[in-house]
């Protein structure tokens, strides 16, 4: 955190000064470890084994917050008789079909609801992503055992599933000594409960694994068991990779989502408007998604205005359709195969920043056109004339077919708008100065691009052009507030800005660009621009920025009160029921119907919001409960299980199943995977340096940053340096099945070999900031990676792989290709 989020780390330092104990679990000793009380070195890719051990510690020692767990989680729910666990099936859950590498999830469902399980969730379209703001469908009225003794209740399933994740197993799998592991367990459990809460903060490297979603699920299970959700000082917080990544999922740059987590329609599953809307709202389900039609219609009204009418299903037919996997990695492979003609790159440098750099560059070299908008001439704009493949002969500049257009872009200081951070808080930024020369904001660029495309299409009668021609596209130049108002939404009959999403209607009388952001322009005031200092208000500081939904600073905060609506403790008082006034009140906006009493129980047959019980805090979930066990919605299992990374140096110590069986793989000659082999004997991981920014486009161009970390380097332990003959500050090269790159050697005790299953495992670390453009240049660590994805969200496994390291520089020119190929051949020949 100190490395990649130094500004946010000030709060950790502040907490430490106030007595907090800081534990840092990381493969290597970083600037964060330097400030922590304890650094726990761990093997990269073994996090579920570690966290599963924490779950086991909580359950075997009954350290869970039992009253919270019984009332607010699905611990008491009874699961189908058909369910079989990984403990029964050697690492697989019931329902696995090896021919498709996917699960039939019916047996994971709650008892009696097996038929309602959705069949089977699609790996092609990252379907589970749309559950980011709400749970997948489950029926109401699930059988429960509040004593938690029923052998098929979630609590007992959880106990059995994690029983083998003992401290001894954690030591064997993760390399963490027993006493150090128990120190972490003690600290976490001692700081949770009625009087205390613990926040789990992770950075997005955690998501970059073939089991990334399940990593975070394991963290969520711990936080639910300890009663740390929906309460002040608790939660699971993602520190995003850069500004407004939260914003770019809320109003997505993702292929499978529309604003507010509405799904992009699929050409077969959502042929009609009704099919699409019902797939979101699940007519019989309880919870706030029941109103999804109002959110969907209002979005279409924002897109198409008066042209969207009840008669044309609000223009639903003009929306693009999914036909399969259009994720970024599939697109790159499609480019290589000649299926993609044009590509826009905006503030992204995949030639350096994305996994399998060679695939990225070869893909971009096989387009008709490529538009790069960036602050500087980055590698993704110049790969065709001086990239690594030009040196190796794989790209010949005079024959490269891609026409590259470079358009200079305005920086964040040269345009206005909002950033949305991890707390879902929108903060307005003013424009500090005009962009230089021809640089333009995204807003300006897209508005003018839209104008020009519409002018070219004017008069077209082709059906495919109508969606563009009918768009409302009358924006003033560079006025971010006009856009934010459109996002907030209008009452179309009065032209007034809406106060919140409760005002949205499905009859076409409202428009709203993103329903969860509705209210950000409440009362005609840019709420995101509020900047009342913290010292001038209470500790929740609600007059700073604006958080979705409806300015709630802590989501599901009904859980901060007990089932009867009283605060769990005076110390952790946050939102509570005021019986006198007959309403929920507190420091935050209650995340609950304001006047629904804790004693409310839904009548039989109730659905939607009326079906939410007075003690169901997780109001967006189909059953109102926090999910320890996910009966549906995830592609790779209802419970997190330790699998080895796609590339590992060891066999899975826990199960016969080696890696995530449902992981997304692209088996093609240009995407080879390292087998377990002594040819690739070491584990490597990558991350950032404080001194640089991601793929370097904004830091390697600046002298003041470049001088601070001027060269690509690789960190190795003194033991590995000795074993391989690596000299401090000398050269070394690192080899995988995809590439060999070179770097200067940093020998440091901050990396330490770990003992895994009796075998010494060396870990290597590299920053990934370098490429061949800018003031300081070097090889790109991401070239080493192949493409293997988490099946739920299609995020690449880029934080762990296997490799070899050798002293000296790598071969150059075509010899480099042969060198890497020879490694592949040896790995195949030798096997293990």
């Amino acid at each position, binding site marked *: 955190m*100190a490395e990649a989020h*130094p*500004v946010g*780390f*000030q709060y950790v*330092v502040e907490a*430490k*000064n106030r007595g907090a104990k800081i534990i840092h679990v990381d493969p290597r*000793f970083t*600037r*964060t*470890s*330097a*400030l922590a009380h304890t*650094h726990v070195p761990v093997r990269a890719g073994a996090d579920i084994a570690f966290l599963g051990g924490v779950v086991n510690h909580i359950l075997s020692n009954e350290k869970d917050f039992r009253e919270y767990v019984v009332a607010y989680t699905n611990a008491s729910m009874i699961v189908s008789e058909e369910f079989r666990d990984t403990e029964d099936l050697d690492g697989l859950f019931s329902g696995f079909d090896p021919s498709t590498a996917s699960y039939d999830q019916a047996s994971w469902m709650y008892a009696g609801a097996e038929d309602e399980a959705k069949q089977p969730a699609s790996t092609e379209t990252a379907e589970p992503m749309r559950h980011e703001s709400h749970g997948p469908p489950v029926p109401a009225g699930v059988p429960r055992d509040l004593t938690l003794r029923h052998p098929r209740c979630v609590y007992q399933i959880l106990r059995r599933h994690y029983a083998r994740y003992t401290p001894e197993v954690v030591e064997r799998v993760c390399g963490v*000594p027993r*006493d*150090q592991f128990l120190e972490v367990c003690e600290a976490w459990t001692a700081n949770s409960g009625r009087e205390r809460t613990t926040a789990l903060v992770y950075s997005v490297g955690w998501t970059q694994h073939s089991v990334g979603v399940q990593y975070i699920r394991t963290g969520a299970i711990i936080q639910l068991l300890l009663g740390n959700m929906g309460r002040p000082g608790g939660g699971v917080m993602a520190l995003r990779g850069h500004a407004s990544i939260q914003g770019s999922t809320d109003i997505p740059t993702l292929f499978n989502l529309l604003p507010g987590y509405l799904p992009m329609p699929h050409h077969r599953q959502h042929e009609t408007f009704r099919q699409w809307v019902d797939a979101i709202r699940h007519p019989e389900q309880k919870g706030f998604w029941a109103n999804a039609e109002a959110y969907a219609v209002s979005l279409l009204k924002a897109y198409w205005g008066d042209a969207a009418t009840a008669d044309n299903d609000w223009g639903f037919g003009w929306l693009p359709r999914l036909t399969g996997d259009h994720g970024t990695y599939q697109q790159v492979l499609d480019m290589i195969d000649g299926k993609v003609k044009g590509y826009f790159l905006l503030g992204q440098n995949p030639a350096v920043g994305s996994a399998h750099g060679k695939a990225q560059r070869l893909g971009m070299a096989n387009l008709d056109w490529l538009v790069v908008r960036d602050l500087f001439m980055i590698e993704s704009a110049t790969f065709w004339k001086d990239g690594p493949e030009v040196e190796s002969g794989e790209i010949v500049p005079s024959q490269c077919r891609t026409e590259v257009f470079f358009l200079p872009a305005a920086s964040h200081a040269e345009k206005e708008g909002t950033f949305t951070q991890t707390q879902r808080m929108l903060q307005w930024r003013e424009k500090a100065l005009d962009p230089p020369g021809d640089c333009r904001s995204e807003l300006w660029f897209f508005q003018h691009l839209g104008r020009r495309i519409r002018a070219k299409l004017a008069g077209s009668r082709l059906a495919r052009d109508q969606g563009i021609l009918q768009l409302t596209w009358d924006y003033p130049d560079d006025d971010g507030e006009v856009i934010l108002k459109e996002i907030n939404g209008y009452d179309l009959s009065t032209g007034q800005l809406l106060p919140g999403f409760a005002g949205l209607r499905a009859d076409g009388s409202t428009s709203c660009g993103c329903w969860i952001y509705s209210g950000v322009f409440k009362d005609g005031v840019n709420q995101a621009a509020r900047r009342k200092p913290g010292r001038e208000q209470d500790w929740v500081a609600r007059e700073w920025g604006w958080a979705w939904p409806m300015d709630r600073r802590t989501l599901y905060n009904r859980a901060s009160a007990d089932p009867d609506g009283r605060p769990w403790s005076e110390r952790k008082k946050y939102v509570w029921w005021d019986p006198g006034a007959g309403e929920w009140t507190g420091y935050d906006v209650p995340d609950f119907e304001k006047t629904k009493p804790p004693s409310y129980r839904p009548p039989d047959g109730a659905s939607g919001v009326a079906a939410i019980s007075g003690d169901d805090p997780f109001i967006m979930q189909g059953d109102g409960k926090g999910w320890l066990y996910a009966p549906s919605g995830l592609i790779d299992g209802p419970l997190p299980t330790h699998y080895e990374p796609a590339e590992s140096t060891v066999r899975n110590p826990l199960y016969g199943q080696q890696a995530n069986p449902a992981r997304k793989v692209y088996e093609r000659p240009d995407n080879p995977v390292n087998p377990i082999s002594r040819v690739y004997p070491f584990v490597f991981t990558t991350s950032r*340096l*404080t*001194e640089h920014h991601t793929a370097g486009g904004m830091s390697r161009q600046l*002298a*003041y*940053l*470049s*001088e*601070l*970390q*001027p*060269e690509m*380097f690789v960190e190795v332990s003194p033991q590995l340096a000795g074993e391989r003959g690596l000299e*401090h*500050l000398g050269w070394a090269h690192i080899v995988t099945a995809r590439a060999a790159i070179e770097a*200067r050697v*940093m020998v*440091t*005790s*901050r990396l*330490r070999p770990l003992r895994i299953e009796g075998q010494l495992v060396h870990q290597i670390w590299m920053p990934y900031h370098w490429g061949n453009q800018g*003031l*300081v240049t070097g090889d790109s660590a991401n070239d080493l990676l192949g493409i293997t994805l988490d099946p739920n969200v299609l995020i690449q496994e880029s934080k762990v792989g296997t490799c070899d390291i050798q002293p000296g520089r790598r071969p150059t020119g075509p010899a480099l290709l042969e060198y890497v190929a020879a490694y592949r051949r040896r790995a195949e020949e030798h096997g293990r």
Partner: protein
Amino acid sequence: MGADSLFGPLDPAPDAGWTAAPPRMGFFTDTSVCIGCKACEVACKEWNAVPDDGFNLLGTSYDNTGGLSANSWRHVAFIEQDVLTQTGRPDINWLMMSNVCKHCTHAGCLDVCPTGALFRTEFGTVVVQEDVCNGCGYCIPACPYGVIDQREDDGRAWKCTMCYDRMGDGMTPACAQACPTQSIQYGELDELRTRADARVAALHADGDSRARLYGHDPQDGVGGDGAFFLLLDEPEVYGLPPDPVVATRDLPAMWRRAGVAGLAMAAAVVVSFLGGRA
């Protein structure tokens, strides 16, 4: 104030002739909360338009600046120490410290400057006037910390000004403003000294017996620093001199000795003449 302007405690601004000087301002750099982000180095260069110092991988942990120089007025040192935990497990101490000009009470650089380019500000800090400096370089060996340095291309001497141009407007110096963890604290020196004492006591109470102050003592060889530090090891570990002394401390003694020697010589001459007559 001090009767002896060349050594010992005194308030330097009034001593330099400022009437109604504001309180002496300074830096307290608490290395126990430094995260080595180097924002101080960058902010300093941005504000003061200091050129880059070359792109050199030094291999000294994460320090690629190397030290304070004409082109680096803040410098973050990184020290990796192999240690053992209480249970005997190998562990690391990774010390980080943002170094800076000490703005000494008795500033050797200022004392030897023949042109008046170096002067004592009303805030008690020491600043080079770049339009006066003629590049004679006398100040460089005079600094007991090795801070002030000549820029190769123009020959003039450069160092931290404590952002004199910002201070005048009541603003915080750029490095302290940019520091995310309040490792660099700026304020009235007296108050910073009180704060630093409390911080050391708190760390000692927490069981960190390594904590100690450096440059805070007006009785030390430079009369105390305007920029002082909380360190977690001996000063030498961070590349700081353990017992810096301003050259002028010995000036009176030297003059005295020179005077005595001169008198003795004169006496000897007189004696020799007298003897000759005898």
